[in-house]
């Protein structure tokens, strides 16, 4: 399949306040993503999995052009036009109606957007005149999805979209994702659990400390790491970094990025 988006050596670090400096405006590099290589193929679903703070959201924001960064085969203007973005848990609120809120976002795109059709696609047509304050979490997720679907994007990027959805809504959501992929839309979806993406993603990229540790189909990854069929993210990270599951603590490393490691834990 044709790659629709290529990332080569993409690195981006958050700037954080440097309290060790006398200058109040001084900033230093904080956590981020480091030397990311990814290939997004047309009509496939790529799952990005990793624990909290792995850099999934940062990577997604970089892909969508929210953070200015080099290393893409497509310019930022293209990515903002042809990549639909659904952030994690947007709290749509206010006294404005669902239709008006969506129309405001649609006005920010160059092409004509059929708001009614979008509302039908995400199942919010019957609630289009409701105030956003009255929407449930599931309906707010649908609002975010409607924004991601605007302008027939070639790639849809979703940051933990299944969070806060009940099992029925999750199933409806995954069905829609599969339909979109069949139509040729590429989907990048992040999650902190492999089980969420088990039946959905064609390929998985495992992230930890801002780096992609391993990438491939789920069965390939499990085979490479010599893991069981029901293994999840903990087992995968342990297999790559060499940490024992019993040694995992809540301690947070001072270093934002750990050295790259080969499978088995050896430093590269």
């Amino acid at each position: 399949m044709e790659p629709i988006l290529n990332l080569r050596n993409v690195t981006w670090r958050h700037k954080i306040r440097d309290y060790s400096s006398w200058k109040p405006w001084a900033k230093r590099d904080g956590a981020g993503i480091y030397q990311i290589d990814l290939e997004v193929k047309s009509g496939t679903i790529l799952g990005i999995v990793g624990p909290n703070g792995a850099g999934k959201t940062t990577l997604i924001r970089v892909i969508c052009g929210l953070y200015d960064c080099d290393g893409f085969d497509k310019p930022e203007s293209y990515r903002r036009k042809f990549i639909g973005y659904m952030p994690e848990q947007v709290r749509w609120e206010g006294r404005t109606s669902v239709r008006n809120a969506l129309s405001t976002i649609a006005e920010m795109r160059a092409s004509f957007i059929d708001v009614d059709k979008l509302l039908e696609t995400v199942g919010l047509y019957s609630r289009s005149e409701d105030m956003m304050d009255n929407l449930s979490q599931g309906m707010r997720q649908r609002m975010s999805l409607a924004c991601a679907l605007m302008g027939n994007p070639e790639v849809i990027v979703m940051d933990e979209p299944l969070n806060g959805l009940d099992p029925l809504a999750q199933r409806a959501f995954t069905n829609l994702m599969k339909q979109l992929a069949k139509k040729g839309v590429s989907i990048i979806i992040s999650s902190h659990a492999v089980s969420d993406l088990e039946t959905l993603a064609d390929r998985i990229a495992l992230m930890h400390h801002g780096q992609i540790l391993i990438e491939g189909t789920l069965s390939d990854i499990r085979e490479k790491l010599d893991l069981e069929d029901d293994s999840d993210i903990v087992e995968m990270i342990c297999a790559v970094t060499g940490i024992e599951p019993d040694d995992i603590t809540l301690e947070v490393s001072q270093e934002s990025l750990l050295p790259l490691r080969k499978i088995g834990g050896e430093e590269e």
Partner: protein
Amino acid sequence: MSSTNLGLLIFRERISAARMMVIWPLLAIFILLSSWGLSDPKASLPAEIVVDSAYDVMFTSTAFIIFSATLGAVLISFDGISRDRISGVLEVKLSQPMKRSTYAKSLILGHWGAIFVPVCILNIISIFVIWYRMGELPSIEELFIHTLGTALLLLWYTTIQLLSSSLARDMGSSIAIGIGAWMLFTLLWLIVTTVVAGLSGVGVENLNSPEYIRIEGIIDLFSPNGVYHHLLEMPLDDIDRGISPLYISTAAIAWSIIPIQLFIKRIERLKP
């Protein structure tokens, strides 16, 4: 994908917000009642203020516009960015293909319109109040200066407020910065003027001395309220604080361009 269309949508959203139920009566009380009271022929005003024409009434009532309309601008715009930022909606908006500078202009237009339109409507009604009470209408030139000055004043406050909203990471800081800026220019500027006058060797015992009035005129160029008053004083023959109209116009242009450019730059660099 123009800033006008998006600005109109933002305007529609802001003007129908719940807080307008507080702002409308606040503006109506201050603007209409001040016009009603000041246009009373029997009214005796403090500080030897003489109000004997329709424009005099409009000019004097701007003290109430400064107090209420600028507060309205703060109340409308304080969460213009921070609310979207906290809720995550800003991420959705900034990921759209629209240029960030165009989005910034739409925000200014929408928020400014939401305070300027009510003030403008009430100003028009107040002209009829003055006409009813005094039997006199202001000239077209006076009306133009008054409307332009009010529009600019509200633009400056809206932009400053949106800028502070974009700097704040939470709603509380956003309100604090906005109210702080409003208090500085509306309530505390006299202290700034007095301190500068004192440091410049100008006696502050007599606030009507020509030296103090001149330095007050200069310091006022650095405050939006001061520039607003300078603009409104232009048609008045009996007020001359010794500041050239060129300086006043330059200050008005600077107050319009600098905060807008700072806000656009801020939105261009903003990380959600």
